[in-house]
């Protein structure tokens, strides 16, 4: 159980029912939305905001969804957020990403199996997440040399910071990993 109330049946609240349906329509759950979202279900007003934020960061924009999920899995591992690491790792599997590549993202500080430009993107994203104040022109130059546009850089920065948000909420709410994997009780 989460530290916060998780409503499985939203029937008593029209706003929550609409939100749940939108989440399921976007693949964020099977019968009910994922635990990260339902842990906010006692506050549909807040959930509506964080859901819009999540759609903007994870589903929309210019970066391919696979790259977004790689960033989310890699930062979750660096932040030691087991829930988010599992969730985004599983999403990468569903997108057809190899286990070797996923493992490199979540266990290998050197990201050895990650090819360019993805490695440069992930290294930059981790730096934003861990030491944003250290980002400088040289970091931007590395991305530019890999063909990453300024618009995409802005998206990587926002997504990396967003990952710090979702990791914090997952940890403080103690939501359980979906489908009860071994790390469920970690």
């Amino acid at each position, binding site marked *: 159980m989460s530290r916060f109330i998780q409503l499985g049946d939203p029937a008593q609240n029209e706003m929550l029912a609409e939100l749940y349906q939108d989440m399921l329509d976007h693949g964020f759950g099977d019968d009910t939305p994922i635990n990260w979202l339902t842990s906010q279900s006692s506050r549909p007003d807040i959930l509506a905001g964080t859901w819009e934020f999540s759609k903007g960061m994870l589903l929309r924009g210019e970066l391919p969804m696979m790259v977004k999920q790689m960033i989310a899995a890699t930062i979750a591992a660096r932040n030691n957020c087991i829930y988010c690491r599992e969730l985004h790792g599983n999403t990468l599997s569903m997108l057809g990403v190899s286990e070797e590549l996923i493992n490199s993202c979540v266990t290998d500080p050197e990201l050895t199996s990650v090819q360019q430009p993805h490695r440069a993107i992930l290294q930059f994203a981790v730096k934003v997440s861990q030491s944003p104040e250290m980002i400088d022109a040289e970091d931007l130059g590395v991305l530019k040399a890999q063909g990453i546009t300024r618009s995409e850089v*802005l998206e990587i920065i926002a997504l990396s910071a967003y990952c710090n948000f979702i990791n914090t909420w997952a940890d403080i709410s103690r939501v359980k990993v979906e489908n009860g994997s071994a790390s469920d009780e970690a």
Partner: protein
Amino acid sequence: MKHSKPFGSDAEIEDARALFDRVMQGPMHDQIPSVMSTTLSMRPDIFSAIMAAGKPILFEGALPVSVKQMIVMIIASHRNCRFCIDVHKAMLEAMGIEDALIDSCIDDPEMKLVPPMYRQILQFALLVAEDPDNIADHQFELLRDSGLNEEEILEAAMVASFANFLVTWTDVPANLNG
């Protein structure tokens, strides 16, 4: 939770979002980080997504807006995020919060001038932001004992979580305009 001076109550504060806009267009205008201004101009879609969460988390809800601003300010202070410190301090000043109280949040580890209930919230928020995986259930009990209900505790945790987004995002110093 009963509101009490010196934090004031939301009823005394004009629309908080309008106040925020005024602060950003006034005293904070020259300090807006490049990442924020460039995102607004080049990627309004991202900016809009951020504001969709920021509005209910920071400007609405059960906890007084002043307490929410104080949570972000104190987390920013611990992360040394200059812009976030300044903007949320400016918000608190615009709400009429005394300088001594604001300074107590930032400069005094024991926050002696902060009323006990609010001090409890701020200490909890700091733990959420800095070590969310290791917060004991006891910390939640302390909040309940202080008179907070579950809705308010959720909000305090959510504001602190969102502050971790804000201080990361706005702390990127690189010039992204050129």
